[in-house]
């Protein structure tokens, strides 16, 4: 049983990983077709994985309702929102879900007038909290924190007309910060992250990294 539970998954990861890594260096139509096939398989599996997320979220909110936990009534709205959206999505404007997706249906209406405004507003509210957090935490205690503060202020002022009003050099300075020191630091971080990701990928392929298998046998 250990063979099926441990060896087979490691063999699958090794085979698929090696094949995909080598595929990149083979400039042949069959190699390209193989890549397309594998990414299509990946898309299908990811489609099934969505149901794990749905189950997890529904289970969480259902437990809150069942146990009458604090604020359980709000969990009903999760089911309400999901139920209505899924129902309209499956109804597909009169044609059932096994036909191609129709445009301008109630499903699109829900996306346009519920999901987009609510999402944009929730993210925009962060502007207030970031400003408030920055006011409380940004203190020019050290030289480094002063540098961070100045860079943030210049970039913020450089993106609004009032910056140009104060001085025409502020937008130029903001562009320079984004294009030179910011680019250099981001590139350094990116190189480090890439090397780390490559090392982790090699460890996964060769079975050194096995965290994804979870615990047990």
């Amino acid at each position: 049983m250990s063979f099926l539970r441990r060896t087979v998954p490691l063999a699958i990861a090794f085979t698929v990983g090696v094949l995909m890594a080598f595929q990149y260096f083979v400039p042949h139509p069959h190699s390209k077709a193989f890549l397309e096939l594998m990414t299509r398989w990946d898309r299908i599996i990811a489609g099934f994985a969505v149901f794990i997320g749905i189950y997890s979220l529904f289970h969480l909110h259902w437990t809150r309702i069942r146990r009458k936990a604090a604020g359980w009534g709000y969990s009903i709205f999760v089911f309400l929102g999901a139920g209505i959206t899924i129902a309209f999505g499956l109804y597909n404007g009169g044609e059932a879900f096994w036909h191609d997706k129709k445009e301008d249906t109630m499903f699109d209406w829900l996306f346009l007038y519920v999901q987009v405004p609510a999402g944009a507003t929730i993210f925009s509210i962060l502007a207030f909290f970031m400003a408030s957090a920055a006011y409380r935490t940004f203190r020019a205690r050290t030289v480094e924190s002063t540098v961070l503060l100045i860079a943030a202020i210049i970039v913020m002022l450089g993106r609004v007309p009032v910056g140009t009003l104060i001085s025409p050099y502020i937008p130029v300075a903001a562009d320079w910060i984004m294009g030179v020191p910011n680019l250099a630091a981001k590139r350094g971080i990116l190189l480090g992250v890439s090397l780390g990701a490559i090392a982790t990928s090699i460890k996964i392929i060769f079975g050194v990294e096995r965290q994804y298998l979870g615990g047990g046998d």
Partner: protein
Amino acid sequence: MFTPTLPSPLKGEGKTALERKKLDFCKGLKEMIRINNRSFDFWLLVGTLGLFALVNLLFFLLGKLGLSWEGFGIMIAAGLTLAVYSFLYKDNPAFKVVENLYVGVALGYTVIITWFNALKPDLYDPLLVPIFTGRQAQYLLLVPMFLGIFMILRFTRVLTWLSRWSFAFVVGLGAGITIPNLIHSFILKQLEPSMHPVFYGGETVLASINTLLILLGVTSVLIYFFFSVEHKGPVGVISRIGIWFLMVSFGASFGYTVMGRMSLLIGRVMFLMRDWLGIIQ
């Protein structure tokens, strides 16, 4: 020393009658303020909802909002926007309702889009439909279908181990694709402009200084993250320069993110003022 304002009966013991009276008064006052606050918040919520309904009714009657799905949608979107912004006053039922509704709608949207963009065109149409209509099916798709089903078996007790096969496939595929793509896109393509000649004729002095600064920044940041050598002496100096570059970058990222959120905020205010209230054109 810290002394609690609201004493328990035990804490009240050993105090004079006047002190006990004072404590009871404080307790009563606090309770009254709490009840009044709750009552105020309740009436504020009811009043705001009533005002919102009244304004929309007026807009529908005046023809500002059309009696159509679009008009109704604008009203709903405005209501959701105001409910989310009500959190700036304090956490309240309107915000919580919208928050949970948003999660539900986003989940429903993900399900339907996954069906129409992935499962239907890649699995249902080429495999299941031909099987049931007697046409030539792509039987190779049974492999990802079973791997997908194995993934869902994670919720069972007996067959949960089968989900490891699916995870191994997805993780192995990702790892295999990652290695050459990262080397090409993120390492070689990023190193190339970092090693750009400082001066080869034709460019300005400022451009040459910038190229040199970028090289210095990349090198110093990499040295800062290199922990196998103690950051002392020349390595310490260079790593300190790396910290400076990182601080500028973090500041710039912060400023950029704040402005991004601000533009979203402006977008929402514009929606309220233009599309809903019609104050600006």
